[in-house]
C-alpha cells in the first residue's frame, strides 16, 4: 500500500476528534496488520473507490469512545448505546471526508460508501481487499483507538508496502 495514504487519514482523524470532541489524540508508529480481528470494542468500516480502492476502519476501546461521544453531545454517556454506534459511523465518515479532501489536492479523487458499524469483543474487520492493512495507533487520556486502512490499485491488484 502506498504510504502517501497514511498522513491524510492520520491528520483527518486528529482534525475530526479535536473539532468535534475537543480531544487531541496522540499518534503512534504505524504497523502492518495481517489478521482480521479488530483492535477495539466498536468499529466502523467504510468502502472507498476511485483512482484506488480499499477501505477505512476506525476501531475504538469502550472507554475512549464513551469519552469522545460524551464530549461531542455534551452528555454523560455510561455505556455503548445507540448514540455511540451512530457517532462511530459519523466520525468515520468525517475522517474519510477530511482525508479524501486532502488526497484530492494531490490529484487522488475518491468516493466513499456509507459506513457499517460493528460492536463486541473480538469482532472482525473485513477490508474490501482482504488485507493486510496498515494500523495507525492512537492514544487518548481515556484509552486507545486505531485507524485501520487497506488500499490498492483500482484494477484490483493490492500493493503492499
Amino acid at each position, binding site marked *: 500500500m502506498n504510504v502517501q495514504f497514511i498522513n491524510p487519514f492520520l491528520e483527518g482523524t486528529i482534525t475530526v476528534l479535536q473539532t468535534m470532541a475537543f480531544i487531541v489524540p496522540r499518534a503512534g508508529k504505524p504497523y502492518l496488520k495481517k489478521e482480521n480481528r479488530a483492535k477495539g470494542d466498536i468499529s466502523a468500516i467504510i468502502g472507498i473507490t476511485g483512482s484506488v480502492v480499499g477501505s477505512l476502519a476506525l476501531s475504538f476501546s469502550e472507554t475512549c469512545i464513551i469519552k469522545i*461521544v460524551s464530549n461531542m453531545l455534551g452528555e454523560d454517556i455510561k455505556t455503548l448505546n445507540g448514540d455511540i454506534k*451512530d457517532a462511530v459511523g459519523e466520525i468515520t465518515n*468525517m475522517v474519510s*471526508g477530511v482525508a479524501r479532501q486532502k488526497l484530492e489536492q494531490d490529484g487522488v479523487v475518491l468516493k466513499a460508501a*456509507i459506513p457499517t458499524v460493528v460492536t463486541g469483543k473480538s469482532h472482525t474487520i473485513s477490508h474490501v481487499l482482504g488485507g493486510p492493512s496498515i494500523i495507525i495507533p492512537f492514544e487518548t487520556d481515556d484509552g486507545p483507538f486505531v485507524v485501520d486502512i487497506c488500499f490498492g490499485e483500482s484494477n484490483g491488484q493490492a500493493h503492499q508496502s
Partner: protein
Amino acid sequence: MDKSSKILVVDDFATMRKVIRNLLKQIGFENIAEAEDGEMALKELKSQHISFIISDWNMPNMTGLDLLKAVRADGDLCKTPFLMVTAEALQDNVVQAVKAGVDNYIVKPFTAEVLNEKITGIIAKYKK
C-alpha cells in the same frame, strides 16, 4: 429572520442532528426542527414555517442535493435559505450544489463559530 426563527436540521445520523442542535443553541438559536432525510424534511417544510434549512448531503431516500432541488422548484419554499453540510468539499459536489441554488456549504467537522459565520452570511445576503 432572527434568533427565534425556526431552523430545520436534516441529517440521517441522529448524533449529528444532536451535535448541530447543540451548536445552534450555543450561538443563540433555540427553535429547531429535525428530519432524518430529504423526504421527511419536505413534509416538515410543508407542515410548518421554516426560516432556514441546514441539510446533510449524503442521506438515504432523498439526498441533500435532491432536497435542495425540490425546495428551489417549489413556489412556496424556493426563497428558504439553504446551508448544505457535507463530509467533503470535492469540487464536483460544490459545483452541483451551487448550480442547484445552495446559499453556502459547510464541511464537517466544524465549530459553532464557523456555523455562526455561515448562517450570518446567508441571512445578510437575504436582507439585501
